[in-house]
């Protein structure tokens, strides 16, 4: 299937779907909560004062707009297209994740919820949630896989300092997907006083829409900044894709701008052919998990496969339903980068630009590393630099054979 005309692109539809993807595959108990969320969100989406409140927090608390930075030395080194970085790493708490939590916490308050819960992989979404919960004085519980707690010890401590309770999840693969299962279990039990702040454009409707909208500030800013900086929209926008929130945030305002090529980069782990990866759009099948129909890594019996990626934030067997749709209609091209390629790009950017990227983001860098030299100097590439790499020190050191 190839898209013809995207002028009327307006998803999700009334049933919460992006083509065949998305929907609301949850237990009956959660339906009322999702319907309430849908109703409240539809209202605040049009509510000027709510939107102003979000913008005010994004400016004064998060530090937006984030700069569009010309990576001059890296561009020279690769010798091709001009490379720009959209600096989400400079946000408060160090990643794009806070764009969503700032908005969702206001939603939670609007619904009168006193308690917020969240799942986290790399810990960035957990920190971003704990941060806004602290600011608004809400009780906060973060679910995190046992394995991730180990590899992201710094973020775990940050969350605790912010007053959140971090619940270790030791079921299943002990990573992000299991943290999400456990968060769902908590939500179904405490549905009346609790808002679940999902951290990606994943989960049941209306979450993929809500998380996308709050993150799309990134793409909206880029539209203005790119015109100012180089007089046109970028030729290519590249972002890493786990669940897909930073990618959706920067892609969405450009979906109808078809002259701009959009590329999502999944975690190739040890290589897509090895089976040890987290790239469902490259090597998955359609199924249902965590409330949504989407591409999943699964076996022939529908069991979800364990994933592998050096970056905890991409270590997820599914992907947001809008990405699944954009893949199928061919509007976004999905590629993958391996652990080793990502690690190399981590070092390259750190040394060439003095910017230490998150390992998640390094996957997007790895793809650009490959294509930029082949493109003419008149082309511009923008990478969503979705987060900073401080949290990954221990992982990188370990990969380099060092102990800190």
């Amino acid at each position, binding site marked *: 299937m190839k898209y013809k005309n995207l002028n009327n692109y307006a998803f999700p539809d009334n049933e919460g779907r992006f083509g065949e993807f998305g929907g609301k595959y*949850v237990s009956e108990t959660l339906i009322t909560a999702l319907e309430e969320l849908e109703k409240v969100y539809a209202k605040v989406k049009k509510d000027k004062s709510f939107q102003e409140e979000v913008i005010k927090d994004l400016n004064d608390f998060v530090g937006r707009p984030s700069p569009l930075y010309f990576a001059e030395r890296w561009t020279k080194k690769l010798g091709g297209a001009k490379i720009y970085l959209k600096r989400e790493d400079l946000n408060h708490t160090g990643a794009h994740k806070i764009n969503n939590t700032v908005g969702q916490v206001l939603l939670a308050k609007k619904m009168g919820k006193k308690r917020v819960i969240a799942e986290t992989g790399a810990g960035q979404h957990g920190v971003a949630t704990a941060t806004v919960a602290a600011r608004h004085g809400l009780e906060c519980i973060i679910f995190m896989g046992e394995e991730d707690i180990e590899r992201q010890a710094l973020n775990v401590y940050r969350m605790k300092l912010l007053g959140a309770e971090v619940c270790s999840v030791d079921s299943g693969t002990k990573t992000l997907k299991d943290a999400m299962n456990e968060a769902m279990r908590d939500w179904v039990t405490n549905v009346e006083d609790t808002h679940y702040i999902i951290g990606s454009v994943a989960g049941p409707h209306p979450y993929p829409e809500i998380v996308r909208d709050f993150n799309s500030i990134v793409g909206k800013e880029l539209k203005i900044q790119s015109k100012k900086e180089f007089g046109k929209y970028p030729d290519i926008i590249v972002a890493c894709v786990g669940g897909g929130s930073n990618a959706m945030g920067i892609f969405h305002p450009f979906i109808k701008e078809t002259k701009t090529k959009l590329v999502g980069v999944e975690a190739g782990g040890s290589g897509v052919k090895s089976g040890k990866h987290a790239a469902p759009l490259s090597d998955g099948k359609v199924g249902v998990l965590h409330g949504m129909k989407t591409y999943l890594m699964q076996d022939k019996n*529908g069991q979800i496969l364990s994933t592998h990626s050096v970056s905890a934030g991409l270590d997820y067997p599914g992907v947001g339903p809008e990405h699944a749709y954009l893949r199928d209609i061919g509007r976004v091209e999905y590629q993958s980068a391996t652990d080793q390629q990502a690690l190399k790009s981590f070092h390259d950017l750190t040394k060439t630009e003095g910017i230490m990227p998150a390992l998640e983001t390094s996957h997007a860098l790895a793809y650009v590393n490959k294509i930029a030299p082949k493109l003419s100097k008149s082309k511009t590439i923008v990478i969503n630099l979705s987060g900073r790499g401080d949290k990954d020190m221990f992982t990188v050191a370990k990969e380099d054979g060092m102990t800190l």
Partner: protein
Amino acid sequence: MTRLEKVFNQKETKNKVLVTYTVAGDPNLESSKKILNDLIASGADILEIGVPFSDPMSEGPVIQKAHERALKKNIQFKDILNLCKQIRIKNKNVPIVLMGYMNSFLSLKNKLAKELNQAGVDGVIVVDLPYDESKSFFNNLKKENIDLIRLISPTTDAKRLKRMLASSSGYLYYVSLKGITGAELKNFNEVKNKVKNIKSLTNLPVVVGFGIKDAQTAKKMASFSDGIVVGTKIIDFIEKKSTPKISNFTKSLKKAIN
């Protein structure tokens, strides 16, 4: 008349229905078969057989572990269908209901309803398939006379309930609490009122499940419903390797509700 209708038709004699839940292949296929046959022999009227899934989002810790044990034995969907066939050979009447998650059922694609029918399965409960998403699934099952058993929860409102009842069959499963399987049951009166309300709107039988762990609670719940579902407590016996105790426990439940 379907097997499920026959079981609930004994309502004339005021017998309440005992539904048991165990996970296929827990702790292994052979024991699973023996446990199911023992359950029938000790008074189970309907067998709900769990389809093990890697991500059982609605289950409490006890049933989660049962899913994990079964998956460790590499249980395939075809093994579960085979298990149902073997139960069916020995027993022509007991209704068999498969309970699981959408992704497992999707793995059989368009062969699902036929395969279920051939295995002697009477109904299906899909935990993460709410009414809103179930239309084509419901219709496909209907073609092979498989009932899609609806879960109704404390948060289901009246308007939604009426819409659901219009496309329900077999029986209705009232989830007695907001939470996961095996959680603490707190508000008995709320359950009673809700079940009475559902029964006033439909002729379909209503069974109550989640949080029923002893004969006393079972008796209370059965007093205003058509039957009860017990899962976690039975699986607890399997986890503790005391399966011989399951028969007596089941008998005590059966006695308590009638």
